[in-house]
């Protein structure tokens, strides 16, 4: 799997130094762990401006690139910065993995997350060997995510929390039900749960992978553990149980046929 690595920092010497550090990190990783042998990652481009990265990404139609960006890309505070660049890259290359290499005073993970999603950070002012260690960690995470995304295809479910657009992998969703709060729904995934504005019927209409099993609940059949037809319950891997309505019995029975892994008790 080809993983082009692209670096951008308006300070030429820092950009070059980062490139050297990345090569050292990758050398360490290959020495330690042969898992990464099939990943063909190398520094493909060292840029110093916003425009250079944009031009390169579009011209080479990069998909699944790993980007190490500084946040401050120019002395002019009005000019485009690393956050703007990350936003552009994410639109252009949905598989892209982005890591900000920046000074601590620009470290604002939540502020950037609401715009461009979760990002990794490396503190620029750390001593060199700590930076290389951090590079190994972030590259490791980036490789893992890329392999998973390519395997699963990027099937994500998007919803809005306040002003923030949140994406979650479809496969991790267990079920979504009406919340105790008005106009809100409550979603349970394999990693946790979340509440956001929504409506069960609308979710059912907009998302074919979700199946409506009652007035107040839609489920993701891929994640159903067990179904009890007589008690009308559906159980999930985390032990949660929901009740489906009588008139959806046939729909649930169809699911049992379609997904033979579901156990019936």
């Amino acid at each position, binding site marked *: 799997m080809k993983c082009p690595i692209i670096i951008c920092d308006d300070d030429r010497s820092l950009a070059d130094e980062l490139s050297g550090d990345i090569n050292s990190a990758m050398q360490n990783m290959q020495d330690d762990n042969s898992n990464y042998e099939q990943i063909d990652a190398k520094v493909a481009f060292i840029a110093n401006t916003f425009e250079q990265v944009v031009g390169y990404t579009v011209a080479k139609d990069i998909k699944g690139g790993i980007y190490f960006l500084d946040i401050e890309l120019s002395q002019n505070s009005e000019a485009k910065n690393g956050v703007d660049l990350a936003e552009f890259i994410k639109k252009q290359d949905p598989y892209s993995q982005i890591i900000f290499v920046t000074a601590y005073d620009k470290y*604002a993970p*939540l*502020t950037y997350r609401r715009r461009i999603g979760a990002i990794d950070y490396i503190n620029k*002012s750390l001593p060199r060997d700590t930076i290389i260690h951090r590079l190994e960690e972030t590259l490791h995470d980036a490789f893992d995510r890329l392999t998973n995304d390519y395997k699963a295809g990027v099937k994500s479910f998007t919803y809005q*929390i306040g002003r923030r657009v949140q994406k979650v992998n479809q496969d991790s969703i267990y079920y979504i039900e009406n919340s105790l709060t008005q106009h809100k729904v409550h979603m349970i*995934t394999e990693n946790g749960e979340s*509440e956001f504005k929504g409506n069960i019927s609308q979710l059912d209409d907009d998302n074919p992978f979700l199946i409506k099993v009652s007035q107040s609940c839609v489920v993701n059949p891929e994640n159903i553990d067990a179904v009890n037809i007589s008690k009308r319950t559906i159980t999930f891997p985390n032990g949660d149980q929901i009740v489906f309505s009588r008139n959806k019995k046939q729909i649930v029975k169809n699911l049992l046929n379609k997904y033979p892994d579901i156990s019936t008790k």
Partner: protein
Amino acid sequence: MVSNNKKLVLSLVGYFYISVLVVFIINVYINNKSVTAIIFSILLVLQLLFMALIFYFILGLQKQYIKNKEQEMEKNHQRQLEEYAGYLEQSEDELRAFRHDYRNMFNSLKVSAQEGNVQEVIDKLDKYTQTNLNSQALLKYKDVNHVHVKSIKSIIISKLTEMYNLGIKYNFECRKGIYSLPDHVDELDLVRIIGITCDNAIEESKALMGDGKKNQADIQIMFYSAESGEFEYEIRNKTRKSKISVKQIQKQGFTTKKNHQGLGLANVKQIEAKYPDMDISYTVENDWFDFYITIDTEDGE
């Protein structure tokens, strides 16, 4: 003041009414009208005076109590601003010391460079970077200077200080200046919400550190104000493994603290109910708890 004390006024009037009745009944039993009339009129007048005295006395006590409360709040405010000013002054000193060292460093480097001793230049640069540029002091209240609403600035300084003193890893961000809150929101309600959520985060972090997982405690806080005037506040903290459900924590009386009433998030819910333009979301994921509130302006969507 009178309307606030409906109960008090009613009780006093009731008391007067009973006094009148008692006087009247006694009057019926005693025959000597003129003497009794005078005596009891005097008694009634005394009762009236007594009532008025009690009433104004209680009013006075109330005013005093309210004044004390306000003074206490002012003192708190003052203390926090003084602490913040102290921190700024310390930073000023550090900057001055740094500038002084900077000059010395440059002179020393110049000498080494003139002598052509490159290795010495590199060694000196390394040494100076380690000691001077990694000062922790400048990081304690990073971005607090971008918060220009006094009450909010005050509460966040107070909570960040608490986190710092407990040794909890934290990060506060407020990248854009906040000059005002949406009009229809009572500042004190927002202060309360920030206070409660920070306290919860601190409690959970203390528990994590108590379990010996000092490196895992982590709190991230964000203030954000959009051009349109909307205000956003987010706080995330690492949690212990015990799977807490989002449904449970919003109920009254839920708490993970021993011997505590656990009113926090239920109170937040009550405040949220007052404002249709306020939206709160809870997310629990991968051992992080996330609390996120947006407040729209009234004429917003």
